[in-house]
């Protein structure tokens, strides 16, 4: 290393220098998402441990409506496509495209939330509340926190849309859109896991004897 004797070795880097070349905020989002994996992991684990442990009904098989949620799942996954298009439009400075695709993402996300509100309400009418049984407790907690994530994403995308309508989004803001997109795709991916475990697999669970992960005799449950 060449530097003057008796001097401290220094260098000149411009203000955008980062060790890895990645932007700080993008790295922050990836770090946050890794943390969120464990958050949903713990909630999903709680659901799986309590599968089929409800002492009273309604049980999943009584009220889970797979076709209905398949539609909302499809809509949510399509919103990821719109999100990708919104980023592409930002990168090519297509102002119309930015607004169109962001709006499409928001509408599809809102549709998903609409379905979820309908579903929660339908369950309530059929007698499943958060304190009814373990199914209600774990179901509403897990899907509720997922819904909260989607809602937060909707607020974020709406702010981006407002910026887009003011013409403040372009290639220079590509990273702002990309990071929101990372979050949005993550929330979608989590839903794929939830839909598979809670609906496609867990949707057929009945009372305390069916579909168990843990042998009930090992737990001294009150009868």
């Amino acid at each position: 290393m060449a530097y003057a004797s008796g001097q401290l070795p220094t260098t000149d880097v411009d203000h955008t220098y980062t060790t890895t070349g990645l932007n700080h905020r993008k790295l922050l989002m990836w770090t946050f998402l890794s943390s969120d994996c464990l958050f949903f992991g713990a909630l999903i684990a709680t659901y799986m441990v309590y599968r089929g442990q409800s002492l009273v009904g309604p049980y999943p098989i009584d009220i889970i409506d797979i076709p209905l949620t398949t539609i909302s799942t499809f809509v949510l996954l399509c919103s990821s496509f719109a999100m990708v298009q919104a980023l592409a439009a930002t990168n090519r400075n297509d102002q119309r495209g930015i607004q169109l695709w962001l709006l499409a993402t928001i509408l599809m996300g809102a549709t998903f939330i609409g379905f979820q509100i309908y579903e929660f309400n339908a369950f309530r009418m059929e007698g499943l509340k958060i304190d009814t049984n373990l199914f209600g407790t774990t179901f509403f907690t897990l899907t509720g926190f997922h819904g909260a994530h989607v809602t937060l994403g909707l607020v974020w995308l709406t702010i981006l849309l407002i910026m887009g309508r003011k013409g403040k989004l372009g290639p220079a803001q590509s990273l702002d859109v990309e990071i929101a997109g990372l979050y949005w795709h993550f929330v979608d991916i989590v839903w794929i896991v939830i839909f598979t475990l809670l609906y496609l697999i867990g949707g057929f669970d009945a009372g305390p004897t069916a579909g168990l992960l843990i042998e009930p005799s090992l737990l001294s449950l009150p009868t």
Partner: protein
Amino acid sequence: MATATNVMARPASASGLWSWITTVDHKRIGILYGVTAFLFFLLAGIEAGVIRMQLAVPDNTLVSPDVFNQMFTMHATAMIFMAIMPMSSAFFNFIIPLAIGARDVAFPRLNAFSYWTFLFGALLIHFSFVVQQVPDAGWFSYANLSEKPFSSGQGIDFWALGLQVLGVASLAAAFNFVVTIINMRAPGMSLMRMPLFVWMTLVTSILLVLAFPVITVGLIELTMDRAFGTSFFNTAGGGDPILWQHLFWIFGHPEVYILILPPMGIVSEIIPTFSKKPLFGYPVMVFSGIVIGIMGWAVWSHHMFTVGLGPVANSVFTITTMLIAVPTGVKIFNWIGTMWGGSIEFKTPMLFAIGFVALFIVGGLSGVSHAVSPSDAQQQDTYYIVAHIHYVLFGGSIFGLFAGIYYWFPKITGRLMHEGLGKLNFWLMFVGMNITFFPMHFLGLNGMPRRIYTYSSDFGWDWLNLVASAGYFVLFAGIVAFLVNFFITVKNGKLAGHDPWDAPGLEWTIASPPPVYNFAKVPQVVGLDHYWLVKRRAAAEGHPITEAEAYVDPETIHMPSPSYWPIVTAFGVLVLAAGFLIEFPWPYIKFPVPIIGGIISFIGVLGWSFEPAAPEAHHGSEDHH
């Protein structure tokens, strides 16, 4: 728009209280963290004193059983979450940017947010003393004890919600340090040239990022059981209290390494410096730190050996727990190997570092003895465990952190702490620590359970308890010696110069205390033990380096502007959590206050995002977008 501009303008004062409230300077935030953590350390130490005085003699009636429960709960909660963790955080904040050659952390405002959230969370838990609803279910608040029927007051709510807020603070800091260490190293500082303290901070931050969401979920479920009548851990509704133990310890065991890895990093800086030798086996030290971080996830059920998980689970966790002693042992041998053949200077930081190694060996060995599940069945819930955790957390973490305080104090304040008082401090703490905690090994093996508020003389535990309680006063005297040293040093301690220890780290190349911009020019790192290499070469060539990097006019270097949005957002988080303590008898919304907190946080985040970027782009901060 005039008003809007005023609201959005960034605060500019450079001194006074307001400047501390709006500061985003990592050095100031580090000092805030350190001072706050030390105050909670003293408070938790006084709570420990109440415990020791109550247990000094049999059948004592100094405090009621209720108060005793509150004391051991708050002592452990405060020591772990409000003293040791934030004290490590203080060093992360102050030292990491200096040690990697950066001008600040990656997200200065997130850093400020982290401190204020920590302070608010700590105050929220301690507000329970004001309203006389103090948590009393132990620092791990096991279900069913923490459920409504068994803890009907609000103590557990304070505990759960306060920890939730502290968790937000820890996560915010951890995100920041992961990004800072990965992304803001000066050119030339490859991963394998990072000082050990930086490595251990990175491993600790990754553990925090992954472990805290698990306790977050556990605390959410506990709060929901208590506030909304769910049955996560409530057997009457089919729930299983063991799930709480799993969630708690899946977080709780990585947490143990979160508490010990930073002091291990500190000690790995100090021992080479005062042995005048590079760290022995640097790559192995890095590797064993990473292995501890990974294996820390595979040992949690050793806290649950007596729960009845069955022979297979107990055997597996016995083996993984014994295996994790291997990388820990490697570290101990390497510290000894570093000292071997070195020209050792017994300055106060070195004494604390050697004390750390010695006491951690004792704690580590008793740890291995309850890694074996049959042997643990004898030790579980006895004073033997209390002895173990205090050897690793007091003899380990606290000694490591005191070593760090004495080592970096000249860098932080520009003044050297008094050596004589420092040595007195060390010996009082070292002797006091052993008098207090060593007898607990025997008490535990003689069957004295943890968390009992008194005992009968018939058990034969009298004199050992009296010795342990007497040791508390020696420890206390050690802390008083530290405080005296601290105040006389701050007032008129000897000026330290930029490099009082002839140390190898980048932080010693700049003035003490460091200028606001840290490095006038971005350093080019030439190797592991950078400053040693530079100094040796300069001396060999006849131009020895005796000065710190020269001051430049701070106006010429652009630094992030102060901001008041972090404290606004942190306050919103506080209201959001504390709101769950106030229940309204309304049909649909039982808890309206958290909504207000959410709105405050949202406004805070909006203000934060749209705060005008400082006028000109600058090196490595979140502001330039």
